[in-house]
Structure formats: C-alpha cells, structure tokens
C-alpha cells in the first residue's frame, strides 16, 4: 500500500529518496538497514559474491580449515584477546563482500552467500510472500530480494541443499562478535571431545 512513485519527468525518483526526505533522522533503523544507506551504496559487490558462491564456498572451507589449524595459536594468545582484532578484520572483509551485519552467527554457506540480515525483515528461513514480481524487495523496492538471490546462489553451490535446513532464531546476545572464532572454537571443542571419547574407548578396550 505504498505510495506510487512519480517517474514521469526527469530521472526516476527512488523510493529510498522519498523515504529519506520524509523520515526524520532520529527514526529507528533495524540493524542499520536504512534507505539512506541504500542510496549511497550499490549492491554490486554483494551480487558478485552471490554469483561466485561456489568459489567462495570452496574458499571458505579452506579458510575455516586454516583457522582451525591455528587453534593452538588462538588458544595460546587467548580467544578473548584475539576477538578484538579478528572482529575488526572480519567486520570489514565481510562487510565489503556481503554487506555483513555482524549478527555473530554466520550462515552464509546455507544461504547461497547472500547475507539474510540484509533482508529488512531479517528472515533467515526463506523469502516472505511479499516479493515483487520482478524479484525485488517488498520493503525496499530498489533492492533485489535477498532470498531470491540466495536461492540462485545456493543452486550453484556444492551443498545446495543446506538452504533447506530450518534455522534457529537469532541469538541477539552474539551480535558484534566474531563468527569465525566461534566456529573455530566450537570445531576444536568438538574435535577434542571426539578425541577424548576415542581415547576413553581405546583405554577401555586395552584394559
């Protein structure tokens, strides 16, 4: 039920511009998704990432392995102490590549390398019913729907069925923390638990 956009003369006036003009600066912007930002930013890099989702999937797998190899180093320095610098890098790299919102629980591999937190409704389980016929967002008519792109991206990937898993609600307490370090710490913990279990089984068998 949004207002019609006058496009008769001159350059097309975007919805974002109208919103920008109408809305006072103090208005709430969910997770920093704001029409102001949309006007300033293009989606070129984000869309490139989605087009190359298969490459990025391969790269991230290698990258995660490397991070896990470095686990002794992180542990040596202390996860708490590396959090700051790693977050600094992660925020900027993922911010540039995917328009990352630092939810702290990255699921890019399950969403075709399209960050679901860019969805104005922050949906993590698929598109809402309001997607426009041209595949653009209901809330921000100039933006391609994050989930239309996610579906395209996921179909290029090796694990194309990961998009079908039901995601849990966002844990808001993890915002602005490093997902890279969390994943590494969890993987290391899982590895150690498995090793301890195996060790226990071996000693049990020998005794």
């Amino acid at each position, binding site marked *: 039920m949004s207002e019609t956009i006058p496009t008769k003369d001159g350059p097309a006036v975007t919805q974002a511009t109208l919103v920008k003009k109408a809305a006072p600066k103090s208005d709430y912007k969910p997770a920093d998704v704001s029409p102001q930002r949309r006007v300033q930013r293009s989606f070129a890099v984000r869309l490139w990432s989605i087009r190359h989702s298969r490459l990025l999937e391969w790269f991230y797998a290698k990258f995660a392995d490397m991070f896990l190899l470095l686990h002794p180093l992180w542990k040596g320095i202390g996860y708490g102490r590396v959090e700051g610098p790693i977050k600094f890098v992660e925020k900027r790299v993922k911010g540039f590549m995917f328009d990352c919102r630092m939810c702290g629980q990255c699921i890019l591999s399950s969403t075709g390398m399209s960050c679901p937190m860019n969805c104005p409704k922050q949906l993590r389980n698929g598109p809402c*019913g309001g997607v426009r016929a041209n595949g653009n967002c209901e809330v921000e008519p100039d933006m391609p729907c994050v989930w239309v792109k996610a579906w395209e991206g996921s179909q290029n990937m090796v694990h194309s069925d990961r998009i079908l898993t039901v995601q*849990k609600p966002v844990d808001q307490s993890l915002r602005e923390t490093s997902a890279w370090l969390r994943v590494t710490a969890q993987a290391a913990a899982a590895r150690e638990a498995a090793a301890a279990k195996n060790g226990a089984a071996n000693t049990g068998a020998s005794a």
Partner: protein
Amino acid sequence: MIGRQRDENPAGIDLPLDPLPGHTSRGRLERVLRRGEFAVTTELNPPDSADPEDVYNRAKIFDGWVDAINAVDASGANCHMSSVGICALLTRMGYAPIMQIACRDKNRIAIQGDVLGGAAMGVANMLCLTGDGVQAGDQPGAKPVFDLDCMSLLETCRIMRDNGKFLSGRKLTTPPQLFLGAAINPFAPPIDFRPHRLGKKIASGAQFVQSQYCFDVPMFRTYMQKVRDLGYTEKCFILVGVGPLASAKTAKWIRSNVPGIHIPDSVIKRLEGAQDQKKEGKQLCIDIINEVKEISGVSGVHVMAYRQEEYVAEIVDESGVLKGRQPWKREIRRDDQMVADRLEHILHDDITETQVDMVKTAH
C-alpha cells in the same frame, strides 16, 4: 434438539471439544479437516473500535457458512483491534477463531505469552506469519521487531505444544493444545523455491496452510504438482486463498500497490469487459473455487472478502463447496430460549398477579 450440533461441547459452546486420537488441538477446524471434509475459512475485518458488538456483528454474517474465522494481526501493518482481543471475544461466543501471530510487532517473549493466553481462552488454531513490513501500513515510523521469523515462530509453538517447554527450556505446567498453521505464496519469486519453503514450514510444525489470493489457477496447478511430488500434501492441509475483486480498477490498484498479490492480465480484461464489474468479480471468485477444489491435495478454501464480507455466504453457497454440509452455527440454546420466552411474558404481557392468585393457580 436445539443447541446440540456436531463439533460442539454439550457443556457449553465456549468450551473445548473432547480430545480425539491423532488430533493435536481440541478445535473444530482440525476435526473438519481430518474428517476429510472440504473446509471453508474466512477473515474477519478487525474493527477500529473498543465495542465488542462490532466484532460480533462482523462475525454474525459468516454464521453457518465457515468452519473457522481468521483474527488478523494488524494485516498490512495497519493498526486495528488486536488478534488476541478478537479471539477473546469470539471464543466466548463459541466461534472457532484462527489466531494470527505476526512477527512484526512482538518479540519472542511477548509471542510465547500470547500463545499461552490464546490457548487458555480456547483458541485452538494459530497461524504463524512473518507479517507485512511497517512501510506498508498507516504508521511507517514504527519499530519493526521481526525477532522471530515465521519458521522459528512455528517451531516455537510446536516446542511449546509437544515438548511442553518455552524456547528457553523452562517447563510449562499445561502445554497449549494447538493446530498450527502457516501462510504460503506460490505466486511470488523465487518460484522454484516456494514448494521447498512449504517443506521447511511443515518441518517446523505447520499442519495447515492458507495461501495468498489465487487468481492464476494454472500457476497454482504447477505449484501443487510439485508439492504433491514432494509428498507434502499428506503431511499438511492446503487451503487456497480466494476472494472477489470489486472492480478492474481495484484489481489494478492491488496489483501495483499490494506486495505479493499476483493478478494476471486475463483477469483484469474479464472484469473490464463485464457490465456489472462487482458481480463479475464475485462470479470470477466462484469460478476459481470450482477450478481449485478439483486439484488433488487441496483441502479447503480461505475466502478473503475485504469489505465485501456479505458476499462470503453467497460465494460459498453458489460454489457448492460444502456439499450440503452446514458448519457450526451459533444457535440459541434451549435454556436460553426458555428464559427469553419467560422474560417476554413478564415484560410484555400485562398481568398483575397477587400472591393469593398465585397460590390458587399453583393448586
């Protein structure tokens, strides 16, 4: 016998029905669907008022024609009476409301509280929605919450019902008995993802789904083909959204202004060519119902006649989807009738009785 219909608790119309095996709720809608009957649901236009009569008057026109009534949760992000409030009123009168819960306005704390409150009032059906964006409504400056999405909301309700726990793991003394619903839109991109999304909703707990307005039957048929191939029709009841269009002008306006509604050109052409566009819109709706009811896997229709609610009965009647069955209808109970008769007698018949007379007549 007055006041005793199928799917009614003899102890009182506002009380839940006896639990049946294989049923997760104690409501009427689940019974109708599980019996294999073609269900009809509709939507109550929520009043902008604090008068309960407004709700009752709007519900009355559906009497005997629908199996359940959707209590919308600020649809289109426009402010109205809340769905919890409408449900409180409707359950008192014995109606079977479907309480809609949108993720737009409430976080997980408020939502779980409302689920318990609703279930305690006797709401048996809950429809989990994401909700329209605030930009669509009358107060675009509102803070959009979207703490959960429709999928995690479904899962939350399912956990509360089946595990008897809050999302946090804290135990419930009495878990809610619910029939969980969700919405589908087969007409919006990405089209090939849509059937899989239904699969995700079923995995999260959806037992029935209501679709967005269906004006493009061939498109819906393709969708249903895919859904049947994936085997979802056995796990979930699918209700098709239909509704009358008031005129070609309205259709065009909806198409360009309301997100998520797909109206093909052929529909608009048909409306434009008609003498009486309103009548043609109603006929179109009946024709669509007649087409979709034949599609295998379709368990019912959801008639959305916004501001044309008086047509719902006609549409249901003329399409013949009920096949002679009459859904539950609010009737005067025998004891109420007796009181009303006596009251009539006392108030209107001009009689003056003395104690002496009364003793005489008593003997």
